[in-house]
């Protein structure tokens, strides 16, 4: 039993070390910055622009559900109606736009990164780059990282706006709140720092999604089965780390 624990610990530490060695390779000086720039633009489209649709749809319905649930839980006349709008706004800004969106992106972007890099590994495309003398880790991962670090805050802002819009539509259509009350609520006691807090979290989450998924893909050994496993691991580990860092960052930034 102790031997098994010891082995697991060694395995964990080895993986941990490999992760940081990979990051060292990723952040080393690029061979041709202009090529990295082009790759980054490409990744901005693949990983960023192409994620707007899913983020918009999910945020809209999330905002709608938050509004309806808040309304049904604050039916007591003691509570002013505008609290529904305030609840929707703060929920979207503080938690849903950053954390839930990050979990969704871990599924979409994370699995995409892990399977793309993993497939390149098993089909020897990464070896081909290494043979040419290209720093494959940097060339493949750095543009993805920059793209997500730049674009995920934009996705978060989009999620906030569309989520609140979804709340307004659902609230007014269901007749649980008037348009005036909702708009008053989303303006009431607004703290701009909450947006900054949300964006800081998003940047951390973007880094986690890209680096963890790329790590899983880069060290795949085997065939298509292993690429599938790496993709699953990328989503699971990214999601767990996002939730863990959500707690840590909330404690640091809001305490």
């Amino acid at each position: 039993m102790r031997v098994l624990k010891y082995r697991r610990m060694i395995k964990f530490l080895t993986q941990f070390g490999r992760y940081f060695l990979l990051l060292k390779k990723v952040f080393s000086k690029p061979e041709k910055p202009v090529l990295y720039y082009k790759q980054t633009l490409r990744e901005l489209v693949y990983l960023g622009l192409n994620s707007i649709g899913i983020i918009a749809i999910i945020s809209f319905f999330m905002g709608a559900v938050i509004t309806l649930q808040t309304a049904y839980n604050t039916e007591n006349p003691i509570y002013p109606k505008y609290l529904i709008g305030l609840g929707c706004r703060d929920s979207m800004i503080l938690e849903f736009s950053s954390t839930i969106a990050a979990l969704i992106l871990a599924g979409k972007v994370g699995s995409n990164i892990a399977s793309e890099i993993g497939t390149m590994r098993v089909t020897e495309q990464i070896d081909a780059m290494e043979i040419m003398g290209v720093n494959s880790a940097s060339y493949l991962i750095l543009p993805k990282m920059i793209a997500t670090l730049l674009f995920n805050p934009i996705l978060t802002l989009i999620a906030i706006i569309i989520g609140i819009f979804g709340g307004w539509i659902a609230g007014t259509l269901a007749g649980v709140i008037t348009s005036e009350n909702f708009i008053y609520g989303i303006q009431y006691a607004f703290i701009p720092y909450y947006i900054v807090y949300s964006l800081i979290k998003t940047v951390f989450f973007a880094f986690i999604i890209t680096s963890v998924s790329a790590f899983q893909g880069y060290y795949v050994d085997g065939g298509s089965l292993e690429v599938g496993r790496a993709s699953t691991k990328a989503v699971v580990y990214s999601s767990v780390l996002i939730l863990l860092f959500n707690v840590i960052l909330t404690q640091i930034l809001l305490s």
Partner: protein
Amino acid sequence: MIRVIKLNKSFNGKAVLENISVIFETGKTNLIIGRSGSGKTVLLKSIVGLHEIDSGEVWYEDTLFNKLDFAGKKKIRSEMGMLFQGSALFDSLTVEQNVRFPLDMFTDSSLEEKIERVNFCLNRVDIINANNLFPSELSGGMKKRVAIARAIALNPKYLFCDEPNSGLDPITAILIDALIKELTEEYSMTTIVNTHDMNSVMEIGEKIIFISDGVKCWEGNKNDILNSDCGTLNDFVFANSLAKKLRTVSK
């Protein structure tokens, strides 16, 4: 010239290559042959530095390659071209972009110059009007040719080919072999080819080493191979019934 001296490589404590010493000559097509799983690919990948070796030396001319750091290896690697078993073309790039990739990375040539070089390399391997196709749109033989074009784009001094004929029909395989031999002579490269295809051995085997269970068992050329005393080599060379019959007839 590439010299390998007492090379050892193991995975998880299991020895895969033991005490391999060999000289690969310039301007010749050097073949590493052996059964599947004998350690050919591991040897080739150890020579090019894709696998860290346990002990031994790999010399490129007068440079001890396996002791170099990343920057030092990068310099030697800019003189290498490699053809992988599955071609290893970049899926997201077109044929032209694949061949242009090393030129984009390591030269400061203008776009026109690079495209001119790409077209020259593609013409050299008989790929015409395929610049804008993606690898998924190519046949196996075409993929190999494009991979060769990419490998020679930077005029390499060393060419490595891992099972260049795998998955190809005999006629296409002979064409690929002939192309490798021609390019080796034309550019005076040191070429190392991993294969278990006896047709390749008889077509282009100017220098051959035979590996069995990670150990070098025999060294010679295509003229010597049919008259060897090495039992494991004979089992390999005369594995099929046609070869066995021919041997009996010749005796």
